[in-house]
């Protein structure tokens, strides 16, 4: 009797408490869902707005013709698009060897507890957080003028953007190298391989998908940068495509900036269309990074 009463009493207590918690749980979930939707809604609004403004302008002609103020309805983005692609390739040629070599040194050779490597580590972390306009000033002072004196040409732009994203490449590469388990290094060294053979034939191939993903993401950031290129004095409205490392150049963000701030409505619509082209390029790059990560990700 007594025990049965106790049991029913305890059951009630349990039910009451859980229903109260369920409401709280539901509210918490809704709050999380709302936060998640903020980013998505903003992106959707942006894309729809840009699509409405410039969607009709995107065509093969648009990406293959030069810009024109004389006939704004036939303007294109060819020099800027090519400039952006050249910048990307040159930038990759610069940051991949330097970034990966730095990462290999810091992970495989440097004494992690030494003062020097700690100093380097803190520096790299800080460099990754320096505003891009500051890199533009650096590029202006040292690459465009100053010691290198390259003038505002394609190579100068690529080097400036390279300096900007180099810390990111180093950090991502270090993580990818660290993710290769030490048992792989031990197995290789135990077979009589040298440290260099172990790094070149085991560690780097194992880290490659992670490094490639990081490089692509770093490049997609470089491609979207405007401020450093403006500061080093890249052209904004250029009628010809770059034809060499020493050629003057422009890039998509600069041309977008130029179009959007124009009084002509046709040019502003072309600006929206150029945004779509740049977004498409970035989506392709990020999709490539995701593909690489999923396809070659190793489960050790």
């Amino acid at each position: 009797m007594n025990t049965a009463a106790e049991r029913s009493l305890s059951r009630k207590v349990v039910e009451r408490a859980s229903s109260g918690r369920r409401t709280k749980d539901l509210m918490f979930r809704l709050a999380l869902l709302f936060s998640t939707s903020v980013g998505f809604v903003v992106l959707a609004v942006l894309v729809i707005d840009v699509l409405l403004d410039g969607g009709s302008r995107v065509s093969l002609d648009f990406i293959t013709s030069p810009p024109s103020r004389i006939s704004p309805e036939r303007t294109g983005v060819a020099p800027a698009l090519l400039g952006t692609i050249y910048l990307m390739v040159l930038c990759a040629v610069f940051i991949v060897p330097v970034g990966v070599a730095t990462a290999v040194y810091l992970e495989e050779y440097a004494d992690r507890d030494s003062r020097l490597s700690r100093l380097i580590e803190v520096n790299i972390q800080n460099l990754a957080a320096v505003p891009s306009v500051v890199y533009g000033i650096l590029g202006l002072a040292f690459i465009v003028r100053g010691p290198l004196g390259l003038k505002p040409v394609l190579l100068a732009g690529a080097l400036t953007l390279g300096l900007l994203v180099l810390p990111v490449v180093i950090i991502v590469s270090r993580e990818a190298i660290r993710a290769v388990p030490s048992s792989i290094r031990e197995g290789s060294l135990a077979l009589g391989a040298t440290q260099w053979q172990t790094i070149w034939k085991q560690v780097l191939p194992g880290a490659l998908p992670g490094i490639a993903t990081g490089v692509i993401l770093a490049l997609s950031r470089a491609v979207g940068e405007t401020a450093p290129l403006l500061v080093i004095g890249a052209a904004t409205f250029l009628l010809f495509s770059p034809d060499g490392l020493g050629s003057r150049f422009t890039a998509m963000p600069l041309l977008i900036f130029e179009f959007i701030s124009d009084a002509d409505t046709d040019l502003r619509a072309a600006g929206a269309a150029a945004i779509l082209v740049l977004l498409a390029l970035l989506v392709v790059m990020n999709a490539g990074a995701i593909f690489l990560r999923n396809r070659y990700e190793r489960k050790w």
Partner: protein
Amino acid sequence: MTQEPDRQEREAQAATSAAPSTSSDGQATPALQTEASGQKPAAGTREAIYDLDDVGVAYGGVPAVREVTFPIYQHEITALIGPSGCGKSTLIRCLNRMNDLIPAAAVTGTVAYHGQNLYDDDIDPVQVRKHIGMVFQKPNPFPKTIYDNIAFGPRVLGMDGNMDEIVESALRRGALWDEVKDRLKTNAFGMSGGQQQRLCIARALATSPDVILMDEPCSALDPISTGRIEDLMLELKENYSIVIVTHNMQQAARVSNMTAFFTVELDADEKQRTGRVVEYDETEKVFTNPSDERTEAYVTGKVG
């Protein structure tokens, strides 16, 4: 390259010096045995491939194992047993200078391999590891095909000869050929744990080492896979010298010729734990009639 003739010469010398009689052998052995005096070596002549003399390892000044002195004989299986933290794995990693990978590790004493101290200043650890293979606790195949796993060692060492033959021969010696000959080009991660470990053994054999060090090679395997690896070890000892660290005392008793029992000692103020060798002797004696009561307590299961 210049190492090769040296080594052969050394082996030839060692072989002739070991040939004479058991009496000279019997004199040499007791001096090297720590606490088990008066033990006669097994019948026939024995050649010590390693001579450990007062070997100690400290990590950042804290001794992990010390005063290890015993010989390791050629073409035999030597087991290192003892409780966790007694320094067995630390010691086995001195035998091919794997401890070099830990910057804080400092090795003292003499690890003589064919009479040559492996810790001499002019010794290149990479050269050492060419002669002394190692198999680890957890199977660690490379994320490559079975074929490339085996071929990796011969390739980095620049070994001559037909690679297909080298791979087949290593897989046969590793008792794996029949199971994998039809899928050599598939990823090694698709193999079972036991097969992966035999692949790691075959991989070590592919570079034709003299010694194979095994650091708890069966601790991640089921009893059937363990049995296959033990059979393999018994086959391999005809041609190789094997040193094995094991937590499984039955395994040590089943496969090894000599057993070293390590224990953990606390220092005076009971702060530092250091591994030491209690007894090193014929496996049969260690397990049936140990000289030290600590060994007896351990092998009979009174202390874990």
